[in-house]
Each structure stands twice: as C-alpha cells, then as structure tokens.
C-alpha cells in the first residue's frame, strides 16, 4: 500500500488553523489509510501538495504528485502553471476551479468537494423560537460582504455574531465578535439561530467552495444568502423545514470519508 504524505499550506507557511488545511488535509488524513502529515526526511510513495508550492520537492520527487488547490492563486501572481507541470494530477473543490485550471494544464483535474468530518460535529441544532441572532464566520479579509446586510438585520431586530480572526465593527446593528477557535466554533455558531453567508458572484469569488454553507447546515443552521432568506428564516418552523430538506443531502454527499476514498482512488490510478 502506498505511503502518502500531505504537505499542508499551514505547515509549509508556518501558519495555524487554516481552514483549507483542516478541510482538505487533516480531515482527509484521518480517514485515508497509510496517510499522514508530511515528515521531512521520510520516504513517501505519494505526496499531496495542499496549496503548498514546494518547487524543489515537486521537481525532485519521483513518486505520485498531486496538487490540491482551492483558491485562484494565479490571480495573486503565483506561478501555478509551471508548478502544475511537475504534477501527475490536480484536485480542486469546485467545477469552476476545474474549468479555469483546464485552460492552464493538460494534467487530469478531479473535483473533490470540500467535505465534513461528521464525527467531530455537534448534533444539529433544533429550532423552537423566533430568531434573535444570526452568525457569520470566516476570515476577516472577507468582512465587506456583511456591509450591505446591516440595515436589514437592524430592521429584523437581529444581532449579528461574527466568528473570525478579527473584529467587525459597525453602529448599524448590534454586533457580537468572537474569535474563531477550533474547539469552540461549533458551539459559538449554534448559539445563533441561523447563518448569514452572503456571496460575491464575480472575479475570484466565483471559485469559492460552499464549505461554510455545508458546515453550517451540518450543524443544523440554515444559511441565508440574501434579504429574502433573512426574512424567511426568522420563524423556527421555516428553519426546521430548511434543515430537514438540506441536512440529508449534506450527510449523503459531503462526508469526508468519501473525499478520502476518492483521493485514494486518484492516487492509486496513477502508475509510476
């Protein structure tokens, strides 16, 4: 059986608690036999470069090389094309990313959507009362998506809970800031009645995966993307109905065990 090492973005760049490394690295490793976080000096049969542009290793490593990318890094000037040349296959979370990358490389590109580790998720929230609090979570550099929603939140009398690496401030509505933490984020999120995750549908945001939406739904929280949704999810009955519809789909289609199986299939399909 092939020994597989994951070089994660967060390890390569000496960062902590990076969402993509958690979802596309740690969670998958947990369910993929013979895989582990890459140990420098150790011999592997396959390496997954999770958003880690380690050119020297990509050039010299003779085993199976998979490049897992979840962001349009070429828009930031990263030398993606020459890095992909060294790879045997590319994995991405969305069809849009696959389409864009297929213009840049002839290497096979596979979609492995961002998934959920249900073993670590809280039980889905049950909804009983009219909504009082709505939550947004994510990196602080995406705060601007919240700006157009504040007036509506005030009108509906909703408190906005922001779970992030920074603080979001405005006088337009009541805001509660909480630092994202891997041990507390689920409880913090379930303290709200539903999530507010407005989307930008242009430029680099076209490539974003639905991982936050999936996580919220897995915790039993409906996700409002616009003003109509905000109004709709005020009542407990509507929220319960939404979760009944969506939770089943999430369980069936977004289990990280399936993502791990798919990644293993891709690795094993490459003969070297």
């Amino acid at each position, binding site marked *: 059986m092939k020994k597989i090492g994951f070089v994660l973005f967060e390890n390569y760049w*000496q960062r902590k608690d990076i969402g993509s490394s958690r979802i596309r690295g740690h969670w998958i490793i947990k369910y993929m036999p013979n895989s582990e976080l890459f140990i420098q000096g*150790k011999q592997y049969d396959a390496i997954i470069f999770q958003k880690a542009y*380690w050119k020297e290793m990509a050039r010299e490593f003779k085993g199976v090389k998979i490049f897992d990318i979840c962001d349009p890094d070429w828009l930031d000037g990263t030398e993606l094309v020459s890095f992909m040349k060294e790879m045997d296959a590319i994995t991405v979370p969305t069809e849009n990313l696959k389409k864009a990358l297929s213009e840049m490389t002839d290497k096979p590109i596979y979609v492995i959507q961002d998934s959920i580790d249900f073993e670590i998720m809280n039980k889905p929230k049950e909804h009983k009362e009219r909504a009082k609090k709505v939550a947004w979570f994510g990196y602080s550099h995406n705060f601007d998506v919240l700006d157009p929603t504040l007036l509506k939140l005030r009108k509906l009398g909703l408190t906005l809970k922001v779970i992030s690496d920074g603080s979001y401030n405005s006088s337009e509505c009541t805001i509660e800031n909480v630092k994202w933490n891997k041990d507390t984020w689920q409880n913090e999120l379930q303290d709200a009645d539903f999530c507010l995750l407005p989307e930008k549908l242009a430029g680099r945001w076209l490539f974003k995966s639905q991982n936050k939406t999936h996580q919220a739904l897995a915790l039993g929280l409906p996700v409002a993307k616009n003003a109509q949704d905000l109004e709709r999810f005020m009542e407990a009955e509507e929220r319960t109905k939404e979760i009944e519809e969506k939770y089943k789909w999430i369980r069936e289609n977004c289990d990280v065990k399936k993502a791990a199986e798919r990644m293993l299939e891709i690795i094993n399909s490459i003969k070297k």
Partner: protein
Amino acid sequence: MKRLRIFKSCWHTAHDHDMIEAMKEFADVDLLINYTRRWDEKNRPIPENCEWVTHYEKGKYDLVILNIDQQCSNQNLNKAVLVRQMKQAIREVDTEVPIIFINHGTPIYPESYPDGKKSNNYVSEKLKKEILDIVYPDFMVINSHQAKKEWDYDNSRTIVHGMEAKEWIYDECREIRSATFITPAGIGDKYYNRSFLIAVIEELKEKYGISHQWIGQGGCFQPKGIKDYKEFLGKTLIYFNPTFASPMPRSRTEAMISGCCIVTTPQHDADTFIKDGENGFLVSPDNVEYAAQLIAKLIENPKLTAHIGKKGRETAIEIFNRDRYRKDWIKLLKDLNILK
C-alpha cells in the same frame, strides 16, 4: 580512508559551506530538500561534493548530521519542526546510523526561559533539558568550550569553526570606521547583547561624535551581497563584538580574518585567543563607557589599530583555518569509529 556518505539538511549556509568544503577529501554530502532551510546560493556556491535528495534511505549513509540551537525548544518554529522530523524519519527506519548534532547555541534564552535569569550566567536548566532530550543519546558538536561546559552533556566535543583565509579580503589600507554585524531582529537580546551594543553606539555618538556602523541597519552600510560585505570588512579598521551568549560568532572571526582590529567581550573563549592590547581588545559585556572610550581611542590612532588588526588576522589564520577545522572533524569521526 573509505569515503563517507553523509545525510544532512541545510542550516546556516556559511557554516554548511565551510564544513562541507572541509570534508571534501573524505565525504560526499546529501542535502535534504526541506521547506525550512534552503541553500543561499547567492552568497555561497553549493560545494561539488553535495547532492540534493528528497528523503533518508536506510543503508545509504555512514553518518547523519543534524543542526540544532536553543530556539529549537520552540516547537512552533519551522527549524525546530525540521530537526525533530528528521530525527524521527531517520530513527523510524534506521536505529544504527550514527547521528551527530551540531549545536549552534547555548542554553541561554531568557525571553522564553526566565529561570535562567536566576543564575549568574543566565543558563536555563529547563531549556537545557528540553534540547538535550532531542539530542540524547546521540553525539553533539558544540561551537565553543564555554558552551560545552554550559550544555554539560558528556557525549559531546567542541569543534570551533574554520574558514579559508583566501576567501576573505585583507587590505592594508583601512577605512577609519568601527562596525558590528549582528542580527537586529527577533529574540536574543541577551544572547547577542543588543542593549550593550545600542548603549555603546549612543555613547560613541553623543560623547565622541562617532557614527558606529551597525551593518544592515538604517543609515549604516547595507551590503548588497557577500562580495560587498567582504570588501567592507577588508577595509574596516575596527570590529566591535558585543555578544554575551553567542558561542564563537562567525561574524567576529570573519572580521578578524579580514584584518579588523577586534574589540570583543571575553565570552565563549574569546579571552583564550585575544591577548588584550596585542591582537585585539577585551571589554566586559556591560562596560559601556570603557568600550566606547576604547573604540574612540582606536579611531584616533589608526596606524596602531591597523597593526593590532593585522596581528589579530594572524591569530585568526592560525586558529580558525579550514585545515585545522578539517583535522578536528577527521579526528572526531575516527574517534567515533565512523571514518576508518
């Protein structure tokens, strides 16, 4: 002599370069491709006896050389991760291959180990234990005799660095200036004794109107590369080394071999090769007034200062030469029965 094959990762390129060059006649070195330490090819060419490899292979190597220093106690640092991962990767598949750790530091790190402040020499017993737990039971090479005493680890030996004098520039004509090259950033205030350096710089400026050159700092000389740095040192009259706990700083040896008149703290064996007033000068690591006064006086007497610098260069060539360094390594490797 059977040629050795050594496995190691990069550390300080200058140190690696000198060591691998010194081993040229008896060893080939495989450097691990890693994401923490890269070879600084701009400043030092990769020696011919080196190759890049992606992993450790059992049975391929006669020796592993790993690098460590006191900061490796901090597991959030990539270099700390690297040394731990390498040892783990090697020992998982090979329990026989000898590993030599080169310890570039001292057990002094008051920013993270305040227990050291209670002792006269700032040595932290807690830090010592954490680092030696990584090294044990393997062999450790230490950069100075004082550091060896401080680490107090039986399975160890001191090998001080050695460099090729002809790779450095010596100009009889010295520019009338004093300089220091220590890192301005990060932790290590006590280690590098930066507060002493800053106080001496201020005293020189205020009392004597002298602008000391803290190399790389704003308003001071900014080397564009190693060649530029060598040319600067080769013409500089005085080099001031303020360090408290850095075991045998390379920058001081580079300045000494380049003919700068050395003004240094006596720490880490400096008092065994600097004879005060003959081939350099010793200043205690907290006597700001004396250090500044001495540098000012040396600047007033450039001929005498240059002469002392020349004497210091002779000492450096005698003590810190690559041939002695090579012989020290051969002796160690023979004593450990690695080189036969």
